[in-house]
């Protein structure tokens, strides 16, 4: 009997899947346009730099000195005047309504007391955004201190002088750190949801059974189902990286081929997760909800927005199983540090291990639900 070989069968299935994807031009547009929009949104919105924080000033002193101190706040670029008044009650209102995040209150007699070395000013911070408040608090303290130092001419030079230098990102732009990481998130969300939904759709519509009775083995079916999405995601990887470099001008010090290799390894795990979700779900609605049960922890425990080292130790161990964590470390190191395989091999190894594990687990479950 002359049956089509394994390669032909898989090729035909890949062709069918690609046809199915490209038959819906709106879906293709989404798959190509959505990541770019996501990158733009992330790139512009995700900024942890604290600048231009809205500040409300209550100057009860009305002296040259008090005005000068307030000016030094706004000259720093960290604070922006959102309003001023003579009455502290207005400050309370401004912070309550969210019009200002910071309140600067200069009490009566400030100039007089400053001359006698005993003045104080009140800085009030809206703690509801704890990160902004922490950073703004540091800035405010330093501004007051350097203002005082500049006025106190009689002080001796300080005994210690600290010089800080930031490597890899001298201007400390958070965008340079975040934009490369967006690549990891976008790829994960896209590949995972597309695979999960595409497989469940066949199940929901009953066409999965038709595929089952064809001579395709479950393994071939998995390959055929995932390869088209892997290809699309690799196109997206190149697309997003290009936009990151050309639009956001994120520095790229590493090797692009190494990035592609990492992307391919990474997609093995994320597509595997998508397949795994599809084996748990009977309807697409279920698949979407289950996807979020995976996406959110993968996203949150990746070190994308929240540093891994700040997590409790147990969760830090858990992040070792998260492919996103390893991929983000690779992407950031390739972009910003120009690191090579000699520094990144542990992450590559971890990706390979996780990918193999997830894919075999989901393949085993897929076989079971298929038969």
């Amino acid at each position: 009997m002359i049956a089509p070989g394994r390669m032909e069968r898989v090729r035909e299935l890949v062709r069918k899947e690609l046809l199915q994807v490209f038959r819906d031009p709106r879906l293709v547009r989404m798959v190509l346009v959505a990541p770019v929009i996501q990158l733009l949104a992330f790139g512009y919105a995700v900024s942890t730099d604290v600048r231009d924080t809205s500040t409300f000033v209550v100057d009860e002193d009305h002296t040259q000195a008090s005005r000068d101190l307030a000016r030094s706040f706004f000259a720093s670029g960290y604070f922006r005047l959102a309003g001023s008044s003579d009455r502290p009650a207005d400050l309370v209102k401004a912070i309550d309504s969210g019009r200002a995040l910071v309140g600067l209150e200069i009490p009566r007699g400030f100039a007089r007391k400053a001359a006698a070395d005993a003045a104080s000013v009140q800085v009030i911070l809206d703690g509801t955004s704890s990160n902004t408040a922490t950073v703004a608090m540091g800035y405010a303290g330093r501004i007051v201190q350097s203002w005082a130092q500049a006025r106190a001419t009689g002080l001796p030079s300080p005994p210690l002088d600290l010089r800080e230098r930031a490597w890899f990102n001298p201007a400390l732009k958070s965008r340079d750190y975040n934009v490369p990481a967006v690549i990891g998130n976008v790829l994960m969300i896209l590949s995972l949801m597309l695979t999960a939904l595409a497989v469940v759709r066949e199940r929901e519509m009953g066409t999965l059974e038709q595929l089952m009775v064809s001579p395709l083995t479950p393994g071939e079916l998995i390959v055929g189902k995932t390869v088209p999405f892997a290809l699309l995601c690799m196109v997206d990887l190149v697309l997003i990286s290009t936009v990151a470099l050309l639009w956001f001008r994120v520095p790229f010090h590493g090797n692009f081929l190494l990035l592609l290799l990492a992307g391919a390894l990474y997609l093995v795990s994320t597509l595997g997760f998508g397949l795994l979700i599809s084996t748990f779900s009977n309807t697409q609605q279920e698949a979407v909800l289950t996807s979020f049960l995976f996406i959110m922890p993968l996203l949150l425990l990746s070190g994308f927005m929240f540093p891994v080292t700040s997590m409790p130790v147990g969760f830090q161990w858990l992040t070792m199983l998260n492919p996103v964590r390893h991929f983000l470390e690779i992407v950031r190191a390739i972009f910003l540090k120009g690191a090579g395989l000699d520094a990144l091999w542990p992450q590559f190894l971890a990706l390979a291990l996780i990918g193999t594990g997830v894919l075999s687990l989901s393949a085993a479950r897929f076989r079971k639900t298929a038969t």
Partner: protein
Amino acid sequence: MLDRTRLMAVIRKEVRQFRRDSRSLVLAFVLPIVLLVFFGYAITWDVNDIRMAVVDQDHGSRARALVDAFRAAKLFRVVATPERTADIRPLLDRSVVRMVLVIPPTFSKDLGAGRTAHVQAIMDGSDANTATIAIGYTQALVQQYGARLEAANGPIRLPVEARTRVWFNEELSSSNMIVPGLVVLIMMIIAGLITSLTIAREWERGTMEQLAATPVTRLEVVLGKIVPFLVIGMVDVAVTSVVGVLLFHVPFRGNALFLAGPTFLFLAGTLGLGLAISAVSRTQLLATQIGMLATFLPGLLLSGFMYPIENMPPVLQLITYFVPARYFLVVVRGVFLKGVGPGVLWGQAVLMLVYAVALIGLAVRSFRKEIT
């Protein structure tokens, strides 16, 4: 236009459909709790445990005292003490440490002679946020140490002191910031994404024609699909709020009623958005893609949940006005942490009402086009 028996029939159908898909129902209630636990326990903005290396070229007792100050600080962990500055680069390259403190050989001599001694801090700047915070703490530690040295020569005081006070979240805990924000994000997922599937599913399964053949009006179909999710959403908000307060001790300073009203408005608007997406996209695969872009991402990025809106470029700030999560977040944080009421929040509520009416109207309109 709106007939009560017909509306009830559509609602009953939707409820039954959702109940039959029991796993979805469980997920709709489990997902928020899982997210809350993850956010509450694992996630923190706070920067702590910064691994650092010290290159001590001085070897004097004063240099050791400075290093000890870093060892004693909870924020830092000294994990390497290389001898040569050439060893710094590989440590930072491999992310073994995030910061290196270099004490030059002349450190003790300068201090002894009354000259200003220099120390250098080299940061891994790639994580700008952590680096900024680490620099702040390093400056404070070095300054403290300098003040201790100076205390021997007689106390000095700076003429002005800044007294900082943090309102609403005195200990600057990030779970106080995150848990209220999470309520918003979960609602975006449940209300925006899940409803975006519902009309598309009718198309995919062919039940749309059946629905079109019945005398129900478009408004009845849209409202009938909104009501069950509205109930699920309200329950989810209540559950997450209670868990947040009991498990994570997030303060709830306001009145629960002032939260319930705006929650209703916000859900109505988001559900309208989800249904409009669903009516346009026709397949569930496409609907989730659009839904992610239109509901989940704006809720995460453009609501001010984690990233301050005022830092965004003007164009993006303009877009945030069309993201209802932005208004809802102000309400949730206001009621939870600030304990404010309608006197402050009415403006947000009005905007959410406008949004809800507009989006439900849009859903009804885009739905009709499809039927004919």
